[in-house]
């Protein structure tokens, strides 16, 4: 069931919270061993909350906007219940002493968090294969990846285990798995959603966002999690529009930017075809297609990874075996305590990124690498600022391919990085972006259309994507059982 439907049914007492949670837990029980979406399932707690909420609703309490909805949260968001592992050995068994801001928001709205979902370790990856725990499998073809790093949350929704879930997006980690799993994924503008309680990877790039089957559900969830939080000094004090009531905007007269840089070499023909068809649909409904240029696009991967890895090396310095997390059993001395705890606790990709980030920030290299990347970031941001003077939104593919096979890209880290080419610029510029299902390839694998907008234009993107879903049915298809 979809999020809106579930909430409505509970509000009208056609469905109880316990029934909703039990149905979710049954679906998880039936598929999780095969697909590996959840790291932990907090079933007892969820049922207890469901019983309490049912009693409160019967006694006359007004239901919150998400009352009774069983949801999932990526395991890099702190919860005071269960564990928060970040898909890493170094945080295995870690019990966070507080709830992330978004977790508080979900629970205040009446949602019931049924579990924590799998991810690439510390959100570093594009396939969920870097999880130290187990890989997650794409429900459309279990030999294939779901995308990453928020693969677990994407699969939890795509396989019908929960109607919606939260993920995080640093370079595409919501949009890309949404595209590969055939669901809607939103990365809000930087600063729209509080990062308090989100385990930091790239602090100037990270944003928490949503997965759901429909844009109407995205709007509902985005309304709940967005807004200022004084505990996150990078969260902005802008009013949150009432997204669910703002979806009926006409497509006629909309200016859609199409950049040649997104449709060049390396893009799979079927992905190109589905994306082009989607853009043509907008044109047929009266939108105007405008050729734009983003001349610095080809430097985006290098720029992004230098910034992200530098920030990661700093953010992950806290995992030192001293206060929490894994500690090596027999350290020689303090330096060895740090080095061995980290060497044994972190996976290969995480170590690779810490090494590169440390190098890029080190004396003698800082100007040539990190500072240079920050200047290129200005150029990339400027490209978007100029483009948005001419268009209302930019349409593009989300990823160069549909879901690839497990193991296919694990030998070549650079090849994996290059696959993020269409999504990571939005994080560099801090703008909003979403992925909406726009078709399938000839293997039946989902394709997503990316729509990007200027800062705080989520409302516009949601309206456009909603209008698209009213005219298409790709989002109604579900993976084979």
């Amino acid at each position, binding site marked *: 069931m979809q999020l809106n439907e579930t909430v409505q049914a509970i509000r009208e007492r056609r469905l109880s919270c316990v029934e909703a949670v039990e149905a979710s837990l049954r679906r998880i029980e039936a598929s999780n061993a095969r697909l590996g979406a959840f790291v932990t399932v907090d079933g007892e707690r969820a049922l207890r909350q469901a019983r309490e909420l049912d009693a409160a609703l019967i006694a006359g309490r007004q239901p919150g906007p998400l009352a009774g909805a069983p949801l999932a949260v990526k395991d890099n968001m702190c919860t005071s219940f269960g564990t928060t592992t970040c898909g890493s050995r170094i945080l295995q068994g870690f*019990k966070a*002493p*507080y709830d992330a801001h978004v977790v508080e928001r979900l629970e205040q709205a009446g949602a019931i968090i049924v579990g924590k979902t799998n991810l690439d370790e510390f959100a570093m990856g594009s396939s969920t294969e870097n999880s130290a725990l187990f890989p997650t499998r794409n429900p459309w073809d279990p030999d294939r990846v779901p995308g990453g790093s928020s693969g677990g949350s994407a699969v939890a929704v795509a396989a019908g285990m929960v109607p919606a879930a939260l993920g995080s997006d640093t370079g595409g980690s919501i949009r890309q798995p949404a595209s590969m799993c055939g669901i809607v994924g939103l990365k809000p503008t*930087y*600063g729209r959603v509080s990062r308090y309680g989100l385990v930091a990877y790239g602090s*100037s790039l990270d944003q928490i966002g949503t997965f759901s089957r429909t844009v109407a559900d995205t709007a509902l969830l985005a309304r709940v999690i967005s807004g200022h939080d004084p505990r996150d*000094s*990078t969260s*902005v004090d802008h009013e949150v529009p009432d997204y669910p009531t703002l979806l009926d905007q006409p497509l006629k007269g909309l200016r859609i930017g199409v950049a040649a840089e997104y449709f060049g070499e390396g893009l799979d023909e079927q992905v190109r075809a589905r994306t082009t068809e989607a853009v043509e649909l907008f044109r047929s409904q009266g939108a105007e297609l405008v050729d734009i240029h983003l001349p*610095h696009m*080809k*430097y985006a*991967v*290098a720029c992004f*990874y*230098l910034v992200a890895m530098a920030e990661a*090396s700093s953010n992950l310095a806290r995992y030192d*075996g*001293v*206060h*929490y*997390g*894994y*500690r090596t059993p027999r*350290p020689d*001395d*303090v*330096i060895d*305590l*740090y*080095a*061995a705890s*980290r*060497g*044994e606790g*972190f996976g*290969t990709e995480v*170590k*690779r990124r*810490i*090494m*590169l980030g*440390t*190098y890029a920030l*080190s004396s003698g290299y800082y100007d040539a*690498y990190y*500072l*240079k*990347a*920050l*200047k*290129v*970031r*200005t150029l990339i*941001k400027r490209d978007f600022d100029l483009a948005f003077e001419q268009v209302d939104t930019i349409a593009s593919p989300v990823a160069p391919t549909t879901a690839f096979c497990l193991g296919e890209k694990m030998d070549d*880290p650079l090849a994996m990085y290059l696959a993020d080419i269409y999504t990571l610029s939005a994080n*560099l*510029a*801090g703008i909003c972006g979403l992925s909406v299902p726009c078709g399938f390839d000839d293997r039946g694998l989902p394709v997503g259309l990316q729509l990007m907008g200027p*800062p705080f234009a989520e409302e516009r993107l949601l309206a456009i994507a909603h209008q698209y879903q009213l005219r298409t049915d790709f989002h109604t298809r579900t993976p084979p059982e």
Partner: protein
Amino acid sequence: MSERIDEQQVRHVALLARLKLSEQETARFSRELSAILDYFEQLNQLDTAEVAPTAHPLPICNVLRADEIRPSIDARAALANAPQQESGFFRVPKVLDHDSA
């Protein structure tokens, strides 16, 4: 072929990053990091002499709060995940009187 980052440099960076790497990892990272750094070189095609760096995408700065005492995490909660603790402290190996590299 000389690599952009050789094994000696890898060991140096690993020390800075407090990461204990095996010999195998050191050799592997030398190869992989060199290839990735070679790719990053393309940024030098751009003239950025007159360009200001963007460390942060939003035009906000100096976000402060009033200098008032507020409740903070209590000591018990802070120690709850400690690998080793003693008398309300985090227990660690001796820091002083040791040669550190």
